[in-house]
């Protein structure tokens, strides 16, 4: 999806800001994945460097634009974490670059993706640059978890919140892209990005995973100890990669969230709208405090997974907790 349609308000805002020459030197783009943070940062770079700007819109075809889009422009520097954190080498490189003036023009744009992945040292190293950057140097940080950045960094930047596409709209778009309505609702809850949704739909793990998690959850709610066996026989073989493992827990959380919603009669925004009758039987079987407990266990499981506890252990523990909690 093009950034102009994804975040029309923000594009308009930055058009007028650049027009009035009020572009600040440091921005923090914060919002969930797939809301166009990186795209907007690139758009700003295009807007600043493009030689044929018409009505505040870069043409995207001139030499400058082409070089930025292909990542070859010497004055537009993009840094993204390699693996789990922004490595110290990358920050060193960044700092070196920050002290230099532009190669071809006077202005430079630095885009740091997933800035929350910076190490503490790296973040502190940026502080002085952010406070008083060299003239015509623009820094754009993007993050999905603003809370994990240093407060001293945040106070030096202008924060731009990226709101999600309204869910009904996203579902419509997913449907238009040829995804079944039932799956569209689920995908819309899991991601904001159309491309990611399509990719998952086409992948070989998404559909079976959905079925297996559903089966497991059914066992849990019926207090059937088979759920424990499901973890090893059904779920673990499917979820070998890290990102799939995260999806499993997301699915569990969404299921529990739906049960909660049904229990309180809020049925407009379900992830599994087609299984409403099943959801309402579950909602009747369980008391609210028990459900709260299950939700908290599932959230805790997610924390373990992030702390590198093995997937099978995490899920087995969760299963035992959920079964035990429904028994007493």
């Amino acid at each position, binding site marked *: 999806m093009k950034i102009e349609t994804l975040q029309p308000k923000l594009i308009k805002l930055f058009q007028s800001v650049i027009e009035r020459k009020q572009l*600040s030197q440091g921005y923090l783009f914060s919002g969930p994945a797939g809301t166009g943070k990186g795209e907007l940062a690139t758009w700003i770079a295009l807007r600043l460097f493009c030689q044929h700007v018409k009505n505040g819109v870069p043409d995207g075809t001139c030499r400058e634009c082409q070089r930025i889009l292909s990542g070859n422009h010497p004055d537009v520097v993009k840094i993204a974490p390699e693996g789990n954190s922004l490595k110290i080498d990358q920050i060193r490189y960044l700092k070196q670059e920050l002290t230099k003036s532009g190669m071809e023009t006077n202005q430079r744009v630095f885009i740091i993706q997933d800035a929350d992945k910076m190490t503490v040292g790296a973040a502190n190293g940026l502080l002085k640059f952010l406070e008083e950057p060299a003239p015509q140097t623009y820094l754009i940080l993007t993050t999905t978890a603003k809370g994990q950045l240093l407060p001293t960094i945040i106070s030096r930047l202008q924060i731009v919140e990226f709101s999600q596409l309204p869910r009904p709209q996203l579902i419509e778009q997913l449907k238009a892209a040829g995804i079944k309505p039932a799956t569209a609702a689920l995908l819309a809850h899991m991601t904001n990005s159309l491309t990611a949704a399509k990719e998952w739909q086409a992948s070989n793990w998404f559909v079976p995973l959905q079925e297996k998690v559903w089966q497991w959850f059914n066992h849990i709610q019926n207090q059937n100890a088979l759920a424990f066996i499901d973890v090893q026989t059904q779920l673990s073989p499917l979820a070998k990669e890290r990102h799939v493992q995260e999806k499993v827990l997301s699915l569990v959380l969404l299921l529990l969230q739906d049960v909660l919603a049904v229990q309180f009669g809020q049925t407009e925004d379900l992830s599994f709208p087609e299984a409403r009758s099943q959801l309402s039987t579950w909602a009747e079987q369980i008391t609210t405090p028990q459900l709260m407990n299950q939700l908290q266990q599932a959230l805790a499981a997610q924390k373990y997974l992030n702390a590198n506890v093995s997937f099978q252990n995490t899920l087995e523990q969760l299963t035992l907790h959920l079964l035990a909690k429904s028994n007493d």
Partner: protein
Amino acid sequence: MAYQALYRVWRPQRFADIVGQETITQTLRNALDAHQTSHAYLFTGPRGTGKTSAAKILAKAINCPNLKAGEPCNHCESCRAITAGTLNDVIEIDAASNNGVDEIRDIRDKAKYAPTSAPYKVYIIDEVHMLSTGAFNALLKTLEEPPSHVVFILATTEPHKVPLTIISRTQRFDFQRISAQAIYSRMADILKQKEMTFEEPALKAIAKAAEGGMRDALSILDQVLSFSDNHVTLKNALQVTGSTTQQLLGDYMQAVHTQTTTKALKLLQQVLAAGKDMGRFIEDLIEYSRDLLLYQQAPQMVEQIELGTVDGQFKQLSQDFTAPALYWMIDILSDSQKQLRFTNHPDIYLEVATVKLCQPQKQQSAAVPNVTKQLTQLKEEITQLKQQLSQLQTQGIKQPIKATAKPKTRRKETQHANVAAIFPVLDQATKASLDQLKSVWTELLQQLPPQQRALMHASKPVAASPEGVVVSFDSDFLLGRASSNQAMVDALENGLDRLIGTAPKIIFVPQEEWPQVRQSYIEQHRRGTQKTTEAKTKSKTAPVISQAKSLFGSDYVEVKDD
């Protein structure tokens, strides 16, 4: 010239411009006036409170030849050079990037040489907490006894990371958070000088969101200005800060107070859909509860913190909530806030918190009276049992025969719906109380002993009013068993008292009969209303007839009832 952020353009250039740190600036000015400046200073405090600004002004004041009442003149050559950052003798070092021993050695070596143009060499070491241990130790000796022409100013946000040996060699100044009031007037000042207009609540919202950091406030203000042409509006301010309106917070708390979970969840959905920052929302809620708590004790204080924005709803809520309830809420909220930082499902955390908040607090208010109640009940039971025992001892055992005979007759009676008891309940029945009851029904059953629970599994509530509950049973047999079991009915009523706060009367009805009972109730109800309307029309026509009679004489008037 590129656009410069407000906080850079309006960086204070004199001690008098530093807002909210009067004690510190006064001390420094007195020291400068009396020529008693130390050779090492440590400025600590949260972000945006003026540490770096104070360090720069101090560097200027020490070197300024026209010092007046401890303020630099800002006109002489050295002052201007320091402002522009070009004076060789004022060296600003970013300790975060120069944190090794080598860089500190470099400072140590160069400190020996006399300054070139100004009287003092000033080293401003910012973010000093990032120095490595080796670097700190390398600095120790120089910091203790530097050459007479050298002044060190260290600045940091995290003083606990600075070794004690460093702190003891410096004069330490702790910068405080700036009060919302001070931030507000400073922003109003800046806007006036820039000749821009503003809405008062907008600046108040920004001042609150800045949390005591002037730089935060000016960054936000900058952004709000770029949204709109030279006019600061509340709408833009709220959009930038991600705060929710006071109105919405009030509504949410109202919903929590009345324990309408559905409404609270709906409001939460609204906040989520508007793309607000969840952390901000929870922070706002905590602040709101804090203010409610404070308002109960010291109303003036809240007016001061909130800069005079206290509305009627807030006052009402502060009366509705008890202090323990508010403690409990703040506990739950801050718990969720902690977890929120490490998750990518903030919405679920908030939903959990909302549902928790809307649950009645069992452990808080209900616990104490309940225990005393149970205690008295138990005492009564014991005395009863004692009496029975003594009776048994005197009279021998003939009761059991009676006891077995009784249930048989009873069962026959209770198999039919008790219409007389049901109708009053239906008169007052509402959907809301039924929903409330349904939501706690499973929990209620969980509290029963297994035997009774098994009995009640075949039941479900079908209608409810504040005074009574109608419960239908699948089978007549179970119904009979249930209604003859007075202990269980008591337990159910007690349980309801605990869970929803009222103890409605419980009436059992067989499931096959329920539709008929309801039907007959509806019919009777309709007839009842018809009757009353008929009566009304009759009484209405009566004056007409009497008037006609008086006009034409009673003989000529014939009353026909159509």
